[in-house]
């Protein structure tokens, strides 16, 4: 008898507990459903229509927009070029901010507290709005009157068409993004480095390791989770770059900075093809999903969390 009652009581307790847990997560869940999952479902639905945002009605056209994207000359050419531009930008931004951020963190880790103001100066660009700082860089990059070219000319060098030549525009945009993001990477790396136990380094010193060896065999592996965090968050942010491109180059010159999100915007609001923009957006979501899953998969096997 008592055996029959006992599990029932436990079950009610468990259910109450689960309900409590669920109710705690509910606000966040509602937020995600309303602002992430529902738009995603709608995005996919629009990609199956011929809606142009202006008509009140639309027809379902099956996978016609995906067919356009992958089989038409215009769709495929644009998809491949914007995607490759986006990847180049992302690699430049993520790699640059991780490498420079780590180097700066190592530098500031060795400096005394009197250099705190320099740390602040490095991280400060992160907190200036993209639009304001991009406008300032736009002026500094100006071919005729910009600060950069005036400096080059003063040093007896040829001026560079920073944002108006095909070869220089994307690196110029990446440089601007690095200027904004490197301070953040530096701070994250700095906190990770400061959290490392000095025992490892003392032991390595006793074994005769030099500074480079300590960095290569102790610091880098132990801060790998931090690198992974910066790489994943940086990758997702960089792949979705829009504002910088919109303000600085509008995708030009010669489409050399036309990243995929900017293309989605022009498809929807300049060509009035919301249906096609939705299809590109959905494929882009899948690409990000696969890339993130692959990164996490690799990290599970390669990254050491023991530190």
């Amino acid at each position, binding site marked *: 008898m008592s055996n029959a009652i006992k599990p029932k009581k436990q079950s009610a307790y468990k259910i109450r507990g689960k309900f409590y847990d669920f109710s705690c997560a509910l606000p966040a869940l509602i937020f995600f459903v309303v602002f992430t999952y529902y738009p995603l479902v709608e995005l996919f639905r629009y990609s199956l229509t011929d809606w*142009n*945002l*202006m*008509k*009140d009605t639309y027809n379902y056209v099956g996978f016609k927009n995906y067919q*356009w994207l992958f089989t*038409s*000359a*215009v*769709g495929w050419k644009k998809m491949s070029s914007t995607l490759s531009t986006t990847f180049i930008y992302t690699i430049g931004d993520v790699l640059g901010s991780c490498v420079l951020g780590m180097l700066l963190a190592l530098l500031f880790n060795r400096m005394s507290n009197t250099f705190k103001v320099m740390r602040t100066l490095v991280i400060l660009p992160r907190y200036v709005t993209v639009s304001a700082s991009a406008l300032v860089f*736009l*002026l500094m*990059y*100006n*071919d*005729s*009157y*910009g600060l950069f070219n005036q400096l080059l000319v003063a040093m007896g060098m040829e001026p560079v*068409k920073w*944002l*108006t*030549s*095909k070869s220089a*525009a994307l690196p110029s945009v990446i440089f601007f993004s690095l200027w904004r993001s490197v301070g953040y990477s530096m701070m994250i790396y700095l906190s990770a480095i400061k959290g490392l136990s000095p025992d490892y380094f003392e032991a390595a010193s006793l074994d005769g390791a030099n500074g480079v060896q300590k960095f290569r065999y102790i610091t880098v592996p132990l801060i790998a989770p931090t690198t992974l965090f910066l790489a994943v968050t940086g990758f997702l942010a960089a792949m979705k770059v829009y504002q910088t491109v919109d303000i*600085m*180059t*509008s*995708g*030009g*010159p*010669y*489409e050399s900075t036309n990243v995929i999100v900017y293309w989605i915007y*022009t498809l929807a*609001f*300049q*060509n*009035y*093809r919301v249906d096609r923009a939705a299809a590109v957006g959905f494929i882009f979501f899948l690409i990000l999903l696969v890339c993130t899953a692959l990164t996490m998969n690799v990290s599970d096997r390669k990254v050491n969390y023991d530190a």
Partner: protein
Amino acid sequence: MKKLLALLLTAIMCLALCGTVLADDEVVEIEFWYSFEEFMREPILAEIANFEAANPGVKVIASYAGSYSESNQKLLAAHAANQVPAVQQTIQTAVATFAANGVIYPIDEYIAANGDDMSNYAAGMYAAFNYEGKQYGVPAFCSVCPTFYYNKTFAEQEGIEIPKTWDEMDAFLRKATIKNEDGTTARYGLSLAGWGTAYFGPIWYANGASVYTDDSMTECALNSEASMAVINKIKGWVDEGLVKWYYGSGASASMRQGIIDGISFGGFHTCAVFDVYKSGLGANGWEVGTAFNPAGVTTVADLGGSGLTLMAKASEKQREYGYKLIKWLSSPSANMIIIRATGYLPVTTDCLNSEACAQWLEENPCLNELYAGLDAVQAVPSNTHWSDIGTKWQDAMAQIFNEGADVEATVEFLCEEINELLADD
């Protein structure tokens, strides 16, 4: 107590209802989305206040909706959400698309109801707001593209004649250009605005070339003999250092500053920035001159700028008052405010023939020639791919003129890409 509470609630509901009815009878609120820059806002908002004073039953909520492209983006979102303004300042290249999709509303019924004579509007500008025989708005903030700005002081001092035709351009450029001893250019004869087809396209059109083979806009004609002649001519001038082709980020500001600083003798821009050139050159002790796009086989210039349109999803009453606002803001007095603040054009013959305009021309006699050519201003032929086509055209020209790309190969590739776009639907 309960009875008292019920009575009180009923009274409140009745009052609220009366209030709503009274409000409906008294004031109609209409939203007006504009895109004009900050320096124009004060006088135009003052004109809107005058409109409200003359129409006590209407309150205008005027708000800045960003650039033309931002405003259109917001409008489409608002249209989808059924929350549209009554009136929008609409760029003329968007009129056909908006009209075809029922975003904007034809004003013909209001014209008929008010017995308005629209022949007063400049024909070419008015036609830009017509789609398939219906009128969807009126011109209000219109410009001539290109407007040939030049340094009048230099022209007078050096005896330089401004070319009236493209045949005279060679001689003009050689005289207006100043070279350094090492052969580099100290002063360009002409700056061309390569960042916008509205500025350089009319050079092609004047010389008998066009973007499409015919009105159906199904095939690119930029590889035609006439077009290739224009491209080769400009390339020759650029290579010789007589012409500077501006393109890309900051090109507009750089070209403007170059003319103001005397790095270029003159350049093609929009008349909407007349005041900027006038004050900029004036600050350096120079005088501005303006001229129409030189004639080729024909005389032509593109219509730039915008007009005022009514939104289809606004209420009947809002549209009715919206139409009144449209008429008010394109009236000669409002038009003159816009002209004085910027350099935009008179959109009606009433304005052009007004005393205020005569005084304006007396103050700025260099505009006489520009105003004399207004009949040759045409609407830009556009379709839903125009934005992409325009970008590809300007990219290709910049590659040829600034990056040394092969003319034939680049133009053939450009036409292939444009044809792909035109076939893509």
